[in-house]
């Protein structure tokens, strides 16, 4: 539709490592993020491999208690701040938002590159922290343990997160301005792909919540370095103040981690059902509702912390409300399948996996928001299982689904569909085997962050560790066949899935400036024609020119 005469793509428009490190092209920056995030993902994953090995037996025999504590802290810090929070926004968001709204780049291309450097600087501090000895506070840095008692590298860890936080803020700001100002003529808000809505909502949270985290970490550092009493009651502070501040950021941050995943699912499901997304406006509004309500529920992390009973009641009620828009989304995605024309390609497998696992994760979240139940399972493996269903079963499934969906667009190559499906199934199976037993463990009472545990829990830990090794294989496979596809994969057409959306109208991979002519939009989002009988999707077809 908007064919480009220039044959060079963004990948070969310029040559040399310098052209990558100094690029302001949103697509190249997306690739920079993808490479860095993959690195951090495997660092965080290695930590999990080690502590799951330790947990194979009840005794703390493989690792010392301190090493174990450092490993779960490292796993949490790296996975949350250096993988999950940036994952979909910085990789798929950077690549797709301008293409989806008909823009040539983000609003502030240099700022975009700067935020990658900020992210890497934060990552460097974190890696330094790991190399010099690690931190043992958990990713939550609860005071006064972190501010007074821990003898590990709290300041280095906090600095890494502090700096990468600015990367989040700058990226969020960039997306918001872009979505407001850079939409193509005719691309009004209710014609935006849902992915853009979710990135917008996520950006809002990044911009509003991340500064609170920065301030909180600064306060921890102030107490730790200068002995100013802020959180430690021994010097006049209040330990619960930290939890309020931390969760005021970290609960919305949970939505930073899941909303973009919901956006990806909202793109994949219509494509593989050849149908408009059911309840588009409801999903869009639900997205914004989650972003706003997400700021009002932080106290549900503190039901047994000693906060007042009335605060507990209020936060439980508000947490119930935030479940409604999530439920609306699940029902609408499922309803999209109804009377659709269903194809089960790799991205769709991940998307359906997401819907199922997110549903179960969300429902167990509702259970945790129920006060009387939380008193028992709070701080046990039940909580661990719940948020992994959302973060891993949800967000990572969505990330992998999105990666498989847009891989042909990003690289111009097609991967092995067979291996794609196999690894999606392995991830799904391995994931459930890893985390389902942890719900049982939690109800039995096994607290989280335990280096050793009573014998009667072993069966479930063994299942979990075995599942984790399967899950690990599921993650390594895509690394192999996707890299393989870069050299040996078939050439992809500009629209291998016959998908709607402007990103599919430009060549694969897209040229540096995206569009020769900025399109004028006069069609709705998900403009899927009723499928005709001969339609095949996902087969590499020759480029038309």
């Amino acid at each position: 539709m908007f064919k480009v005469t220039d044959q060079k793509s963004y990948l070969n428009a310029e040559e040399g490592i310098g052209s990558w490190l100094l690029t302001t092209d949103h697509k190249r920056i997306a690739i920079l993020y993808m490479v860095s995030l993959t690195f951090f993902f495997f660092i965080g994953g290695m930590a999990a491999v080690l502590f799951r090995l330790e947990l194979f037996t009840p005794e703390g025999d493989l690792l010392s208690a301190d090493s174990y504590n450092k490993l779960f802290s490292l796993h949490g810090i790296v996975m949350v701040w250096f993988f999950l929070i940036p994952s979909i926004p910085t990789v798929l968001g950077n690549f797709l938002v301008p293409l989806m709204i008909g823009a040539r780049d983000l609003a502030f291309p240099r700022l975009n590159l700067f935020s990658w450097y900020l992210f890497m600087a934060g990552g460097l501090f974190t890696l330094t922290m790991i190399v010099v000895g690690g931190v043992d506070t958990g990713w939550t840095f609860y005071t006064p343990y972190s501010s007074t008692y821990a003898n590990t590298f709290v300041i280095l860890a906090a600095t890494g997160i502090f700096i990468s936080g600015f990367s989040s803020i700058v990226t969020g700001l960039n997306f918001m301005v872009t979505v407001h100002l850079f939409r193509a003529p005719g691309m009004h808000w209710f014609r935006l792909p849902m992915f853009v809505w979710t990135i917008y909502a996520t950006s809002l949270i990044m911009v509003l919540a991340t500064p609170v985290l920065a301030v909180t970490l600064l306060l921890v550092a102030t107490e730790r370095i200068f002995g100013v009493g802020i959180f430690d009651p021994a010097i006049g502070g209040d330990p619960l103040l930290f939890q309020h501040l931390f969760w005021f950021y970290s609960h919305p941050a949970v939505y930073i981690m899941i909303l973009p995943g919901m956006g990806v699912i909202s793109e994949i499901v219509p494509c593989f059902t050849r149908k408009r997304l059911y309840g588009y406006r409801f999903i869009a509004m639900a997205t914004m509702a989650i972003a706003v309500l997400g700021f009002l529920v932080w106290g549900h992390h503190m039901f047994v912390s000693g906060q007042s009973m009335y605060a507990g009641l209020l936060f439980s009620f508000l947490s119930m409300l935030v479940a409604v828009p999530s439920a609306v989304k699940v029902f609408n995605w499922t309803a999209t399948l109804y009377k659709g024309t269903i194809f089960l390609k790799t991205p769709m497998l991940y998307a359906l996996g997401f819907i199922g696992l997110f549903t179960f994760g969300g429902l167990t979240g509702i259970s945790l928001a129920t006060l009387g139940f939380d008193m028992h399972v709070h701080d046990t493996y039940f909580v661990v299982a719940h948020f992994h269903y959302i973060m891993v079963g949800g967000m990572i499934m969505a990330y992998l689904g999105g990666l498989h969906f847009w891989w042909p667009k990003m690289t111009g190559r097609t991967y092995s569909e067979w291996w794609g499906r196999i690894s999606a199934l392995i991830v799904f199976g391995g994931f459930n085997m890893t985390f389902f037993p942890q719900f049982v463990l939690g109800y039995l009472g096994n607290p989280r962050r335990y280096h050793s545990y009573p014998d009667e829990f072993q069966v479930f830990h063994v299942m979990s560790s075995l599942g984790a090794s399967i899950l690990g294989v599921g993650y390594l496979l895509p690394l192999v066949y996707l890299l393989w596809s870069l050299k040996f994969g078939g050439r992809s057409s500009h629209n291998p899935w016959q998908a709607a959306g402007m990103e599919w109208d430009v060549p694969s991979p897209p040229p540096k400036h995206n569009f020769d002519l900025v399109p004028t939009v006069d069609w709705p989002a998900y403009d899927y024609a009723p499928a005709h009988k001969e339609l095949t999707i996902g087969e590499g077809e020759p480029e038309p020119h």
Partner: protein
Amino acid sequence: MNQSFQFFPEAASRGAVEVDYLSFALLAICLFFTIGIFAAILVFGFRYWHTREVDRQFSPSRRMHWIVELTWSLGPLAILIALFIWGAVVYVRIHRPPDNPLEVNVVAKQWMWKIAHPNGRREINSLHVPTGRPVRLTMISEDVIHSFFVPAFRAKQDVLPGRYTTIWWEPTKPGRYRLFCAEYCGTSHSQMIGEIVVQSPEDYSQWAAAEPSQTLSERGQRHVKQLGCLKCHRAVAGTQTGPSLTGMYGSSIPLSDGTTIIADADYVRQSIIEPMKKVHDGFKPTMPSYAGQIESEALLEIVAYLRSLEDVQGD
């Protein structure tokens, strides 16, 4: 303690059974919706598989669309509100102080639980309790945050430094149950464990009397004398520099800023550690701070002593 494999934890308190009912309801809701969504995906997936010739005409009216959306918004909302109420009832119950509880003191530190019974017997990393009577723990930490968690009682409460928190249950089933620290507290967090020994009231009395010692309130009275508290806090009206301690515990105290406060354990503690924070109306703020001079256990003993004077009429 049940050392063998188990799939469901033992329930050993009255509240535990209540929590279990709630859990079963939650489990049913989780399964209902998860299975429902999976089933819908499977059914639609087979029925509308791309090679199948089926009717795919789909153009719902605007009205139908709204009805569907409102149903699956308001339906879940109703369930959620019901769950909120049910959960809140269980939660509020444990926050209501019980009648005539056995008052046990707990001091947590990295990495042990120090426990003192009202008759003076102490133990470490184990807690003996009788059945048939509410047991209330008044807890404080000497360092970081810990959390007192007994899975068989289905409840936990964080233990904070610098402030008392409380938890209570009514044990019903004699036996030995696990005690865990549930809030990550450093290197040996997973070793900060112990056992709860639930006994019949007779066995408990026998156990508690096995090591005769001063009761907690007797010890508290001794501290009050040694520290010279009574120099100012005399019970004789008209001669006091400070308010009388008799009948003070549990009463409503008028403060110099015009508000009132119930004199609970936390108020007593704060008045000793930071006397200038909440000054009794009508008295001069002259009391010095005793921060650093009284051990955590001793402070709890003073609280126990003042509690024993709760129902004594001042003269």
